[in-house]
């Protein structure tokens, strides 16, 4: 066990996989000499050489497409997309090739790619640097889509993603890169189960990635008002661990789902629809979603308006609990934003 930032935990996971398996190669823009714009690949090229940690030409389709070819020849490419907003030039190779090759070839060809995407906002960045495109990939059959909320999870989930024979889109909450936590490098994770990070009785609050911390803050604030929230970290965005979510909602009867991405046709829509299918009869109130609004991600000066926050979550909690007056949160709000 040792304390490290999430960025360091990801670096450790990559280092340990590179060391453990010769077929693992990293490819991306500026991941070599520079060590990545977030330093997640720092020192890896120096230690494993330019053929295992590859500085790629500036072309995302090329990065994904050549990784498909490398996978054909038995390698396990780990692609880095520098920022969320730059994955779209590689979208065709991801949805038409990476996601489909195993199905297309009836299992003959496996695509054990991992595509690392630093994602999410709240960091005061310029356009295309704060997006949350996970729904596009969750809607795409043939891909696993995962994220992590803590250094420990980042470490073990990235290792599990690289070890998986399925293509995995790994969304790294870049806003949490510098948060610290204990990391046990012996711990292993599966890619399929959600985690109940806080037990509660009044309502189920589902979050993942960067929103898990906010969800826990909301649970604390709610508890000040005698509301007990159960907080679930989805971890796997696709497929979703519907068992864990439904089991919780059966107990609480109430559901709130939150993420940064816009709400329409989103992961929140899916979690809510899944719960409707799994345990409608247990719902005591309409599930609520607290997500980014249906606008493009805005300039930094407006991102606090766009992003779901404590107040919006607590407001939704109130609505599911049939308590309409949100003012009571003003103190909590002041507290937290102080």
């Amino acid at each position, binding site marked *: 066990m040792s304390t490290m930032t999430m960025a360091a935990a990801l670096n450790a996971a990559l280092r340990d996989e590179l060391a453990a398996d010769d077929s693992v190669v990293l490819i991306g823009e500026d991941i070599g000499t520079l060590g990545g714009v977030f330093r997640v690949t720092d020192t890896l090229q120096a230690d494993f050489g330019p053929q295992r940690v590859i500085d*790629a030409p500036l072309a995302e*389709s090329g990065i*994904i497409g050549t990784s498909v*070819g490398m996978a*054909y020849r038995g*390698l396990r490419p780990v692609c880095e997309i520098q920022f969320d907003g730059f994955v779209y030039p590689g979208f065709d190779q991801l949805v038409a*090739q990476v996601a489909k090759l195993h*199905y*297309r070839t*009836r299992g003959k060809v496996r695509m054990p790619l991992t595509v690392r995407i630093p994602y999410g906002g709240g960091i005061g960045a310029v356009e295309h640097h704060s997006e949350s495109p996970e729904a596009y990939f969750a809607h795409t059959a043939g891909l696993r889509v995962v994220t992590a909320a803590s250094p420990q999870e980042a470490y073990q989930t990235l290792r599990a993603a690289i070890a998986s024979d399925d293509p995995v889109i790994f969304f790294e909450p870049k806003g949490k890169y510098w948060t610290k936590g204990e990391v046990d490098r012996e711990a292993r994770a599966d890619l399929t189960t959600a985690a109940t990070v806080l037990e509660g009785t009044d309502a189920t609050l589902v979050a993942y990635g960067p929103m898990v911390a906010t969800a826990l803050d909301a649970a604390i604030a709610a508890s000040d008002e005698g509301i007990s929230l159960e907080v679930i970290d989805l971890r796997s965005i696709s497929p979703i661990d519907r068992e864990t979510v439904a089991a919780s909602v059966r107990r609480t009867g109430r559901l709130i789902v939150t993420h940064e991405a816009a709400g329409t046709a989103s992961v929140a829509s899916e979690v809510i629809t899944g719960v409707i299918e799994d345990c409608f009869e247990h719902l005591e109130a309409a599930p609520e979603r607290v997500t980014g609004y249906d606008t493009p991600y805005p300039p930094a000066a407006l991102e606090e308006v766009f992003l779901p926050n404590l107040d919006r979550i607590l407001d939704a909690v109130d609505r599911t609990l049939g308590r309409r007056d949100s003012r009571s949160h003003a103190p909590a709000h002041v507290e937290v934003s102080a």
Partner: protein
Amino acid sequence: MSTTMSPPDPSLVEGLDEPLQVLTADGERRSHELLDPHLTDIDDQTLANLFIDMSVVRRIDEEAVALQRQGELGLWPPLLGQEAAQIGLVRVLRDDDFLFPSYREHALAWCRGVAAEEMLSVWRGTTYTGWDPYERRMATPQIIIGAQTLHAAGYAMAARFAGADEIAVTCFGDGAMSQGDTNEAMVFASAFHAPVLFFCQNNQYAISEPVSVQTPVPIALRPTGFGIPALRVDGNDVLAVRAATRIATEHIRSGKGPMFIEAVTYRMGPHTTSDDPKRYRDQAELDKWSRRCPVTRLEKHLQSTGAPVDSIRAEAKTRSDEVARSLRSAITAMSPPEPQTLFDHVLTTGDATLQRQRRHWEQLEESLLPEAS
């Protein structure tokens, strides 16, 4: 840095003015300084084998078109007219070279041991993949234009990193030259000095669009801008393609990086069986190219060499008839996949959501069994 970079080798492209050729349209063998040294193994037997290969794949193509008409196939993209380009290429590749084709390279599949019915199964709609890519060292048909070129570049990068000397070969058409992926594949191949052969069959059309819609200059010029040497060859001259392929593969295998071949040919048939070329090209053009037919050309050449043409023709016919016969019986005997296989191979491991969907589908099917009503 580029400021101190040397200008490109002037011999970066050969055949721009006139595609490289050793067999004239009448089948006369012309001597060729660049190509002849790579054709020293050509004897009557080799020529006969090439003729038989081309005849058989043309027959498979004809059978497929007929089977589509009869409703046995949903669609078929004929290779008619491109036999020399494909046979000239594949017959001098090494068995461990890996091929990344588009959807029209039936001759490559045939020469890699794929049964005709395996090829056709994809176009019958029973599967997306007719053979094991690893067994044949050939990926199955790629429909997204240009996508496979990046796969080949990546495969070649991996081969180079592994210190192996096999090469990757990717086939694509004139239309694919416009896709970002094809150009990015040249970027990566050039940047990583990847052992990959870009083989462009310029059959003059992308469905209805003549190659002039894609580029006002010869295709073989494009790779030179990426620092990739190119050969522009008469794609209806099987010996020219064979020699060019040898030049390119020797260059690539010797560690000199990627190469590009533009095989100038012609799609004598429709784009696919659902296309009607009369809407966009005239008979005169078709006639002009018919006179350049690659199979007739080789046949004439065999005559000129005094080879036993009649017995070779007979041999080709026998082989083709066999293939056609077994193909027909195999295709009509082909049973559709079991319905529940819809749910297989999405992920390599179980997925609760999909399992649940599968179970629900099974229950519904169960409830709908005729005897149940």
